[in-house]
């Protein structure tokens, strides 16, 4: 505690140490500010992850989060979910869909990497192979577009 250090230095007649105590204290405060800013920035990014990846984070992302951050993420998830449930007159509305205003029901997407099989709503399975193009319902593709597996082709 710098105040006790300060007063004890004065008492023992070592007033020449007061400047270094002050300097050290300022450094510690600065470091604390930096660390806090870093942790806060991490939290903001983790929050953005919910919007990008959905409610289940991929394993390689979770690997880089500490336990408290994971807990914070699940609490954020919960509050977002309860907010979404309260919209639309009690029926709930998924606001993480359609981040940009949609122009059409189906879109043309191009597969950028091999992703294997992908199931759509009516049970049919599509093989997502590199460089194949598909014309699919928009809401199914949004997730994969955000992950970079599919690319929206506009012509």
């Amino acid at each position, binding site marked *: 505690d710098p105040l006790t250090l300060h007063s004890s230095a004065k008492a023992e007649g070592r007033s020449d140490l007061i400047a270094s105590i002050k300097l050290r204290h300022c450094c510690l405060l600065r470091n604390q500010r930096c660390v806090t800013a870093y942790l806060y920035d991490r939290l903001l990014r983790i929050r953005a992850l919910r919007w990008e990846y959905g409610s289940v984070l991929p394993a390689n992302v979770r690997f880089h989060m500490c336990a408290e951050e994971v807990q914070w993420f699940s609490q954020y998830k919960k509050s977002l979910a309860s907010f979404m449930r309260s919209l639309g007159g009690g029926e709930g509305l998924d606001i993480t869909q359609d981040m940009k205003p949609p122009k059409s*029901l*189906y879109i*043309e997407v*191009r597969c950028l990497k091999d992703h294997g099989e992908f199931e759509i709503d009516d049970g*049919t*399975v*599509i*093989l997502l*192979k*590199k*460089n*194949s*193009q*598909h*014309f*699919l*319902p928009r809401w199914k593709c949004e997730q994969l577009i955000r992950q970079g597996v599919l690319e929206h*082709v*506009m*012509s």
Partner: protein
Amino acid sequence: MFITDIRKEFYDVVTNQRVALLVAADIDAVCACKILQVLFHCDQVQYTLVPVAGWQDLSTAFLEHKEQFQYFVLLNCGANVDLLEMLQPDDDSVFFICDTHRPVDVVNVYNDSQIKLLIKQDDDLGVPSYDEIFRDDEEDGDSGNESDEGSEPSGKRRRFEEGAVERRIERQRAKREWEGRRREILFDYEQYEYHGTSAAMMLFELAWVLTKDTKDMLWWAVIGLTDQWVHDKITHMKYVTDVATMQRHVSRHNHRNEDEENSLSIDCMRISFEYDLRLTLYQHWSLYESICNSCYTSCHFKLWTLNGQKKLQEFLADMGLPLKQVRQKFHSMDMAIKGNLRDVIEESSNKYGMKDIRVQTFGVHFGFKNRFLASDMVHATAALLESTEKDDSASDNFLKALDSLSRGNLDRLHLGIDLAKKKLMAIQQTVASCICTNLIVSQGPFLYCYLMEGTPDVKLFSKPMALILLCKYLLKAFVHSTRNKRCKLLPLVMAAPKDVEKGSVIVVGIPPESETSDKKNFFGRAFEKAAESTSSRTLHDHFDTSIIELKTEDRSKFLDALITLLS
């Protein structure tokens, strides 16, 4: 079977289904694909597009997708082979084939349930009638039974037996005769390979029947037709007839903007019929370079000789075009010169023996600076499709070429034009060096030319379309430069290294050069037979049977077999 009503039997069937589109790698197919994609977007037909470069790709794509799709649409592939035999599909798979490859395999023609051909029946097909090739073999069973029955000897039986034996012999003789005739008919039918109406045009007609045709689709159909002309797949007569058909559609679309009050903005697309010069890419190059690198002018002037160069200078002087103007980019040429350039060139060309310097084609115009002729687009897209820059795979290139046809992707199109210029210059230089070093040798029934591995730009010619273009230009140049009358009527076989690591070459054969050529190519069957007889290691993967891949070591024995076969 042939489809008669393309709307009811094809489009209405697939409208509420999911479709797999398997598209071959040529410009006509790419254009047809774009037209079909737009139609599917309109009606929200879910589809998956897979580019296929050869028979192996086609089989792989089919195997991967057969669980998920019942309807397959094949563009520019699949008609000239027994598809059901090759793919072994389940009974409920249905294939819609829109293909220019002829002759159409007889099994595809006569299968009623699984193969639907989006081909016009009057398209010069000459399909043999059903009875000439297929026959219900019930009589065999009877003759078998009779031979079993006649085991107990008795007077009456013996006479009956003799009668039965005679009838059996007669039936067998008739069967052998029929089979002999069948082999002959099939041989004649399948001997020559050629091309029919453009797939893009067929699908444009579908769009027209649905009244969903737009100017973009019309332009793509024109490009598909022009691709067939640039790559010499159809006869001149057919080209002119098809141009007339397209011209009717163009006028129909243009009538909409003739109204003075509602004139279209400059940004809208306008397609016009042009009787333009046969100088490749001249509006995107300088006039001089275009004349030097266009097959027609280069061959007529013989620009690989000094004499030819002199003649060219005379030609330019004759037209009164200063060299400085002619070597500039076309856009920067004097307006006064550009004004009646076509007529001036035509007049002078007639004096120099080039009677058909002008050809019927179409041009598009949108925005202030965007003018393209159909042949410009074909060359640009072909260069993108077969680009050897970077290590892009065939399907990457296919998608790039597909993108370049949309009006929003002009930078890609300009990239394609640059690549096309490089390709044309490479072709001209290779032609010049082949002629000057007498690399074309007559082997008796055909001419032969082999591009060595160290040849500059030889990587460009490992691709089929580029090699075929080189082949055609080379043959034309050879015909113009040789004095040997017999050699002028010979077809040309050309080989170029395809993959140096794997030690393979690509071999193509083209029919002889003549004004009235019917473009029918017999090399497909010839290559097959030659490969069989020498057990050379060949790969007949390309949809055009006259293009094959061969191991370099087997080259000489394959060639010898081919010579013996065709003499």
